[in-house]
């Protein structure tokens, strides 16, 4: 205990600032991990509340791509089982000035639906303009029973009156009687699903077999939780990648713990030597330093968990924005921190600290009782090891290359992650060689001024320590650069793709922002109006509907492929003839699929897809695979005639309008707006759609940048911490310089030059590692997670600017240590021995 106090606790207290910087770095690392996880859970978990609250005691669900024929209710009811069947329509209502919300159509006449917490809607709820509102939505809109409510359903503005407010926890929705919903949404005869409640005492398996037995094979019969599980599956890649990004800060924190313990060991070599001479065992010394790391890790992690909980509040909206834009409707749920999560956070911090401290603690173990080596000799040994480290770096780089070729494991790019980790290790091991190389190359330049000579030499000679700092900074810079290159490349790819994809002059769709997977109908009158508007050359009626394929969701779309062929510029994978493929589609059971769909489900051109559509299983031949960046879930596209053959009467959900040559787009747009004034439709010019797409793209990656920024801050803290350690460790040398005639500005200049040199080497290494990691992100992680091909377009200006900023901040991080160095009392430090 006494040993612990003198060798570990007292120095930690003495170097309080350094101790606090290390704790802060670990705390930030853990905080980012905790915040990302909590916010991710809150943002993606919240859709469960909106779906499941309403489902109540439903045991099974019957669903079909393209809708369930309502006649099945009658047939199911006649089964000899004790079960209740409730028809459900689930759509989206647009509330002007407020936004979109879920609209349910439920059978208010036959029974009080279980989904509305058992409260029977009041008399009159089945009338066409009666609406039931969830308490959460009513509270937000300040509605009470009897109030009036305006909503847009299927592009038509409707007046309702609120007949009842129902409790449904935090879920927000409107509910109409099923018949009223069918009329309002123009869905006569079809339902979105049938909810099945099996009576207590009924044999569940028998009932399930009976239901399955009479349903067409294309109908899905699943448990209510299946949709949540499907959402979770869909979001798994997104959350995994976010989680991996959040670990960067923790990795950078690990470097700092390594550095802190290394400094502890180096500075206490003499004390360790004395202790060993006095009989202290190797195990005791080893244990002491590991304890120091655990202490720093655990305290840092405890602070980090608290900080993470605070950060999660701010992060949840960023993540929810992405989830809403790309995946599914979600209102952020409250962030909750469980005891298990607290323990996991603390354990993660402590474990990372323990692992990072292992090597330096082993170094302490090797101190012989008689040898309290001088810094010069110790560092010289470290210098001799650079070749070994470089060889290790080459081996790790080779292993990283091999790991990057691995196939995904359980849909996750595990090989890519392992390769990234190995690449970080390779870079860290290459740091000593790079420092020596840069030092050698710049020696002539450095030797010109005494500050640069001293700084350059100190960097090279204090190799053991400086290479750890360079490793930590380089990792953070590399992550920033790689994500910058990946996002920049992705953005450029999407921009180019938008130029190709969005060829129509105007796009018409129902008003209001609809959620992913929700495709409100465009009234058939509108498409007629579009065709008859002067200046319009062609109108492509596009129908999108969400469908389920192998337990996952994707979009089934239908276009007029002849118009797409003549006016569009759809790009197919190399080697595929666009014109020939598009000519094949009209009137045939052929489809084209998007690249993410093909990659996700492992299908190729020429393969056959069996899709359950309506009451049938339809086999479609894949005629080609086209590039698409609008959805990672993927598209299956057919000609409109093919869709109508299997699902007659499907209206369009949007329309692409191509103008005649020379037609004035603004004039035609105004004409369309005037002619469709009676319908709630939005007419957007081409540029606006492109702009909207890029806005969504940028919003999606906001969280990524936020995570990167924290990693950089952690690295900066590390740089300040390490420079401070270098200053304290060399205080006698710095004092000596004052004796030899150095001015305080020369001392300051030396430390700032070291900071600048450190930043330069870290930037070089970070940039090289960043390029390697960006290739992994683009061609392995993204490809395997989301299935799209991103062209490699490094954003040079952005990278240069970011690197310059990081370099400047590194130099700034040297200001405080430089001030400490300049203020050292030479008499005190020179006579410390």
């Amino acid at each position, binding site marked *: 205990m006494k040993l612990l106090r003198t060798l570990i606790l007292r120095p930690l207290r003495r170097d309080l600032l350094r101790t606090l910087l290390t704790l802060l770095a670990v705390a930030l690392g853990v905080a980012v991990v905790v915040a990302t996880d909590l916010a991710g859970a809150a943002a993606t978990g919240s859709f469960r509340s909106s779906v499941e609250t309403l489902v109540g005691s439903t045991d099974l669900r019957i669903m079909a791509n393209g809708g369930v024929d309502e006649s099945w209710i009658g047939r199911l009811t006649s089964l000899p089982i004790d079960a209740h069947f409730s028809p459900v329509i689930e759509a989206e209502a647009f509330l002007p000035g407020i936004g979109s919300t879920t609209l349910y159509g439920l059978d208010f006449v036959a029974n009080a639906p279980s989904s509305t917490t058992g409260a029977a809607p009041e008399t009159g709820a089945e009338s066409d303009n009666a609406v039931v509102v969830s308490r959460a939505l009513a509270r937000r809109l300040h509605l009470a029973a009897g109030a009036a409510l305006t909503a847009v359903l299927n592009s038509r503005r409707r007046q309702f009156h609120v007949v009842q407010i129902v409790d449904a926890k935090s879920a927000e929705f409107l509910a109409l009687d099923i018949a009223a919903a069918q009329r309002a949404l123009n869905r006569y005869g079809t339902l979105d699903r049938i909810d099945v409640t099996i009576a207590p005492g009924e044999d569940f398996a028998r009932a399930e077999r009976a239901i399955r037995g009479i349903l067409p094979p294309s109908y899905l019969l699943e448990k209510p939780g299946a949709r949540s599980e499907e959402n979770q599956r869909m979001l798994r890649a997104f959350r995994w990648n976010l989680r991996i990004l959040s670990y960067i800060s923790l990795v950078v924190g690990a470097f700092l713990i390594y550095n802190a313990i290394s400094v502890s060991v180096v500075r206490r070599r003499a004390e360790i030597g004395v202790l060993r001479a006095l009989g202290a065992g190797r195990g005791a010394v080893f244990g002491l330093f590991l304890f120091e790391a655990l202490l720093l890790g655990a305290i840092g992690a405890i602070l980090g968990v608290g900080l993470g909980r605070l950060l999660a509040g701010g992060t949840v909206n960023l993540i929810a924005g992405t989830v809403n834009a790309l995946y599914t409707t979600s209102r952020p749920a409250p962030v909750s921190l469980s005891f298990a999560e607290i323990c996991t956070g603390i354990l993660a911090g402590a474990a990372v600290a323990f692992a990072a401290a292992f090597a330096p603690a082993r170094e302490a173990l090797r101190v012989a009782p008689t040898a309290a080596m001088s810094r*010069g000799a110790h560092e010289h040994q470290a210098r001799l090891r650079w070749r070994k480290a470089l060889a290790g770096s080459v081996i790790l780089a080779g292993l990283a290359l091999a790991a990057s070729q691995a196939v995904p494991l359980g849909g996750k790019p595990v090989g890519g992650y392992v390769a990234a980790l190995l690449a970080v290790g390779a870079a860290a091991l290459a740091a000593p060689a790079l420092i020596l190389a840069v030092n050698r190359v710049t020696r002539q330049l450095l030797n010109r001024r005494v500050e640069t000579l001293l700084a350059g030499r100190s960097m090279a*000679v204090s190799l053991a320590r400086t290479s750890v700092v360079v490793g930590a900074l380089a990792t953070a810079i590399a992550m920033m650069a790689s994500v910058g290159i990946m996002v920049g490349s992705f953005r450029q790819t999407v921009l180019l793709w938008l130029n190709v994809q969005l060829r129509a002059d105007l796009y018409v769709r129902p008003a209001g922002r609809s959620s992913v997977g929700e495709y409100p109908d465009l009234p058939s009158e509108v498409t007629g109006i579009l065709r008859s508007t002067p200046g319009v050359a062609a109108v492509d009626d596009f129908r999108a509907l969400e469908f389920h394929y192998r337990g996952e969701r994707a979009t089934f779309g239908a276009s007029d492929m002849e118009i797409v062929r003549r006016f569009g510029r759809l790009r197919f994978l190399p080697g595929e003839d666009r014109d020939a493929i598009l000519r094949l589609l009209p009137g045939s059971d052929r489809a084209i699929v998007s690249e993410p769909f093909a990659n996700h489900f492992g299908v190729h051109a020429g393969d056959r897809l069996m899709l359950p559509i309506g009451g049938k299983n339809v086999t479609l031949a894949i005629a080609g695979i086209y590039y698409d960046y609008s959805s990672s879930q993927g598209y299956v596209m057919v000609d409109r005639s093919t869709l109508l053959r299997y699902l007659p009467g499907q209206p369009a959900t949007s329309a692409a309008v191509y103008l005649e040559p020379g037609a004035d787009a603004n004039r035609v747009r105004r004409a369309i707006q005037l002619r469709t004034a009676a319908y709630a439709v939005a007419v957007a010019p081409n540029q606006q759609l492109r702009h909207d797409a890029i806005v969504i793209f940028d919003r999606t990656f906001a969280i990524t940048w936020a995570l990167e920024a924290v990693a950089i801050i952690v690295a900066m803290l590390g740089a300040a911490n390490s420079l401070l350690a270098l200053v304290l460790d060399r205080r006698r*040398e710095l004092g000596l310089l004052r004796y030899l005639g150095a001015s305080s500005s020369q001392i300051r200049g030396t430390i700032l030059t070291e900071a600048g040199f450190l930043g330069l080497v870290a930037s070089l290494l970070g940039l090289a590692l960043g390029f390697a990691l960006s290739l992994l992100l683009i061609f392995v992680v993204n490809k395997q997670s989301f299935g799209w091909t991103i062209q490699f377009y490094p954003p040079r200006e952005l990278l240069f600017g970011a690197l310059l900023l990081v370099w400047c901040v590194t130099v700034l991080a040297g200001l405080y240590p430089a001030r400490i160095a300049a203020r050292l009392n030479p008499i005190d430090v020179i006579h410390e021995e």
Partner: protein
Amino acid sequence: MPASRLELRGVSKTYTNGQPIPVLHDISLALEPGTVTALLGRSGCGKTTLLNLAGAMDFPTTGEVLIDGRSTSSLAESELTALRRRRVGFVFQFFQLLPTLTVLENVELPLLLSGARNTLSAARDRLAWVGLEEKATVMPYQLSGGQMQRVAVARALVHSPDILIADEPTGNLDTASSEPILALLRQAAARFGATVLMATHSAEAAAIAGTRVHLRDGRIQSIERA
């Protein structure tokens, strides 16, 4: 009467660490160019404090330290730095070579700090003078203790200072290694005209001094002239 090169006039020094700790009392000494003066006395008698005052690294609480008649206490920070760069050289008991620089660079360092030109040839000359020219490119930890102290002497004299302050220059060396160091200090005074002020416990070291100042409890007990 012309001013002595280094003069301590009624110098007292008191440190304050919660309570005042007097270290030196009313010291007066005048040291001339080309002389070697040894400070003798037990550990803690104030030898190192007196050296720091004489080298303008510290300032007296009362009294004056004069270099060529100018009080060090009246000098601005930049003037003090210039003074240390041009006129004072230090040799320490534990050599204090920079482990990050080669032997030659260590010798060259004071010239580099003062922004002098042609630093390399001057450093080589001094290194040759201490007999270690062939060790120019090695690192300090590769030298023996005696060699390290010879490098330290070369460094202290590379800029031809008027005053050479040596704190126990042989305190960490055996007799065989001490002799060449003492010879170098003697030469520094005789050949370069430096005023050498040395603190020592060693009788051999004291023997090279023309003046031996015995200190006891921060006061001059006696002054012995050869």
